[in-house]
């Protein structure tokens, strides 16, 4: 596709439910990132994949958060037993293979998650 695609755009869930957020990166982009953006704040890093390998998950706030990218393309961020503090916009970004850390990241429109 032309850009990073995320779905759904909006998700409302009751506290305690599980949710799954999808990210379809730009074709050919081997690096994929997930960020969490709370209201009025800048995005905060959650996790990073290079192809199917999850190389950094240091930003995941708890073991209720799980991300996967089994075939090195589409990624899913899953949140189990959601809590109100999980309400945020979840942004996905992708980039070309980044050897020196200089590749710009291309972002999707995000999924706005609201936990009632």
């Amino acid at each position: 596709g032309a850009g990073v695609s995320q779905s759904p755009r909006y998700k409302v869930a009751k506290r305690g439910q599980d949710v799954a957020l999808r990210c379809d990166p730009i074709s050919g982009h081997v690096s994929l990132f997930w960020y969490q953006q709370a209201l009025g704040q800048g995005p905060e890093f959650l996790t990073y994949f290079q192809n199917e390998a999850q190389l950094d998950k240091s930003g995941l706030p708890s073991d209720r958060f799980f991300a996967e990218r089994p075939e090195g393309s589409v990624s899913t961020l899953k949140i189990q037993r959601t809590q109100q503090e999980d309400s945020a916009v979840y942004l996905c970004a992708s980039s070309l293979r980044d050897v020196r850390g200089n590749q710009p990241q291309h972002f999707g429109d995000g999924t706005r998650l609201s936990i009632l």
Partner: protein
Amino acid sequence: AQTVTQSQPEMSVQEAETVTLSCTYDTSESDYYLFWYKQPPSRQMILVIRQEAYKQQNATENRFSVNFQKAAKSFSLKISDSQLGDAAMYFCAPRLSGAGSYQLTFGKGTKLSVIP
């Protein structure tokens, strides 16, 4: 913890005038990259400009330019001939982590309003 400070929560500029958004950061590394992203209400994070820390020359991209002061760890964004479409949240995002971990560290953002 590495920090990024954008000291201006909100700024306004008259259409066609020039505005400068400030950003300071903290890092012990010598080679890194710095990015400015723009986020309009549609939520998609859009790359505005990129600077490589080892380059002394300040980056420019059409009406956008940076003032990079490495010793002061300062990375400000100048927007010339401001246009209504420039109204958005602007985030400074250095890539501060060590080799192999390429997440962006975002500031809290500056909301820019453009007055017709």
